[in-house]
């Protein structure tokens, strides 16, 4: 292996990246866009959901209940109306996610110690959101109801005992259930897949398509020099982009980072090597940019999105799909990132993730070095 030749191939590859608007866009803009997109847009947190209220009683008591809604982070009372048709319209055109109705005999029934029903009309076009809204609403109403009960008993001079049992949920590692904390590892895996496999899957195929490969392989450059020269620039770009994503996540979205930079670097490097070699392998085999890019997307980008535990929890997938995720590097990468970010797991404890990643990297690198021949037929 000659350093000059490797450097020549790498320099040429960098020029290709810089001079092609699309690859430059993917390298420079895509990571930022994806982090922002998922950080804001696909946020799984439901906060400040717009609700409409129809308070048919407008008493001190009904106001007290509404205040609970208003002061929670989850809801935002955008309007108080005084008929059903306005509620219906607001739900129809999506201005309200929920309409909340308090009956006219609200305080009267409560005073009498009876049961009173409040009505919540929920927009269930997105059933996931609807379930969360219902959950939040029930919780708020339940808490209020307990308080009313306590007060009622106290007024009657009874010795007040706190409820005998209560479930206190604490979500560990991600105390505020901020979904951006879950999102960032996934975004990293997606960004790396695009840089690592998608972009590299084009490099060799492009040379075949444009006819530059024939001349290249008639020179003394070795196949290993071609491979490394092509992959090293993407390796550096991939790590750089990972850094951009992490910095954005930590400083913009305040995602907690409890681990070490070393752990992050090692797992990212292993994942990236596996992807680069896979992209190179695909490119060599197909010799066609379109086919190569599609195979690369299906083999890396989609799994990173759907099967890595990024958007959907692996434990909730069907058994068969769970098995499939075991052969996907993205799964181990996302899981290692979650541990590094949220738990601060040190490198030494990450072997269940790092060992499979290292195996993928090794196997794919071996395959990639074997597959490329300086031969036409």
């Amino acid at each position: 292996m000659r350093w000059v030749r490797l450097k020549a191939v790498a320099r040429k590859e960098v020029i290709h990246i810089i001079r092609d608007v699309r690859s430059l866009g993917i390298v420079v803009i895509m990571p930022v866009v994806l982090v922002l997109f998922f950080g804001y847009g696909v946020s799984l947190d439901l906060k400040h959901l717009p609700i409409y209220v129809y308070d048919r009683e407008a008493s001190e008591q009904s106001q007290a209940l509404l205040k609970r809604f208003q002061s929670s982070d989850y809801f935002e009372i955008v309007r108080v109306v005084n008929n059903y048709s306005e509620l219906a319209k607001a739900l129809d055109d999506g201005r309200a996610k929920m309409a909340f109705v308090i009956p006219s005999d609200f305080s009267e029934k409560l005073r009498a110690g009876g049961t009173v029903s409040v009505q919540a009309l929920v927009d269930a076009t997105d059933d996931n959101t609807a379930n969360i809204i219902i959950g939040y609403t029930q919780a708020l109403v339940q808490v209020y109801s307990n308080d009313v009960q306590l007060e009622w008993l106290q007024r009657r001079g009874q010795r007040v005992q706190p409820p005998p049992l209560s479930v206190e949920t604490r979500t560990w590692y991600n105390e505020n259930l901020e979904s951006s904390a879950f999102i960032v590892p996934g975004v990293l895996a997606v960004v790396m897949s695009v840089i690592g496999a998608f972009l590299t899957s084009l490099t060799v195929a492009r040379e075949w398509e444009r006819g530059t490969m024939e001349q290249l392989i008639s020179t003394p450059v070795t196949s290993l020099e071609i491979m490394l020269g092509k992959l090293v620039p993407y390796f550096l770009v991939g790590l750089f982009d990972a850094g951009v994503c992490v910095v954005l996540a930590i400083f913009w979205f305040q995602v907690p980072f409890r681990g070490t930079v070393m752990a992050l670097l090692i797992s990212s490097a292993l994942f990236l090597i596996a992807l680069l070699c896979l992209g190179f392998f695909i490119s060599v085999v197909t010799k066609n940019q379109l086919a190569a890019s599609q195979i690369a997307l299906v083999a890396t980008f989609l799994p990173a999105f759907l099967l890595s535990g990024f958007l959907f929890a692996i434990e909730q997938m069907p058994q068969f799909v769970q098995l499939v995720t075991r052969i996907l590097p993205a799964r181990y990468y996302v899981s290692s990132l979650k541990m590094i970010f949220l738990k601060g797991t040190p490198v030494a404890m990450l072997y269940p993730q790092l060992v499979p990643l290292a195996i993928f990297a090794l196997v794919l690198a071996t395959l990639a070095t074997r597959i490329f021949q300086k031969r036409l037929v």
Partner: protein
Amino acid sequence: MNIAAQAAIMLAGLSKSFPGVHAVERLSFEVYPGEIFGLVGPDGAGKTTTLRMLAGVMPPDRGTATVAGFDVGRDPEGAKHHLSYMPQRFGLYEDLTVDENIRFYADLFGVNKAERELRSGQLLRAAGMSEFRGRWAGKLSGGMKQKLGLICALIHRPKVILLDEPTTGVDPVSRRDFWRILYELTAEGVAILTSTAYLDEAERCHRVALLHQGRLLFCDTPAHLKARLGKGVLAVTSPEPRRVREQLQNAEGISSLVLTGDGVHIVVDDVARRMAEFQARLKQAQVPFDQIQRVTPTIEDLFVDAVSGGKVRR
């Protein structure tokens, strides 16, 4: 042993088949240092396949080929330091500038910076391209692209140069530059093997090999080949060459006939006798023609004659 007399390229029974086609069949010839050797043949004759095998980018099926002393079948990488190959299709990077392409190839061949600058300066001047160093290769004209290809191929002073139809689609001026550079190289003892579609270009080679369906028809100097033809060639100049052909193609004593720009070339068995016959025949059929005269045969005449079997129709 006399080094100069040792062949730079040597083929012995070289063969290559693809499914359903013998692209190259038992090809044998030698190219010596300081020689420009032309591979001539119609589409699909096997020129590209031959050059690819010699360049070490396609393994031969049978036979051997030695380039700069290395057997390309056994050690395809060995000769690569000493040869350069310009594929039929433009093989450089269109989004790299002229200088960047040159530097890339210089680096691959281990040419140092001082040598690269000296050599590329000379070559760019010789090619009339000094002012285009910063231009993207993709933005060059066809002729300039080919000249850039040649410059990249020459940057490391190879002993053997393999060119596949290098001047196809190249303007006459660039073509002249191209050939001038090739002739200069022969003075340095470089062996050049070039395929060509232009028969007039084949005549500029020191020796040519005529290739047809993967087989070697003849291999000799252009002058010897012409002498070998033995028969005579008549040139009929006419404003309507097609009608001349129509009228004469079935005439007696013809072994082959080709259209040229301003008439037809006819290879005949007996020049004096046929000239009179053709004149009479064309007059009778009222086909307009300016004159019929004996000409020295061109490679094209030879080639067409060889391909059509060289049999005189009786």
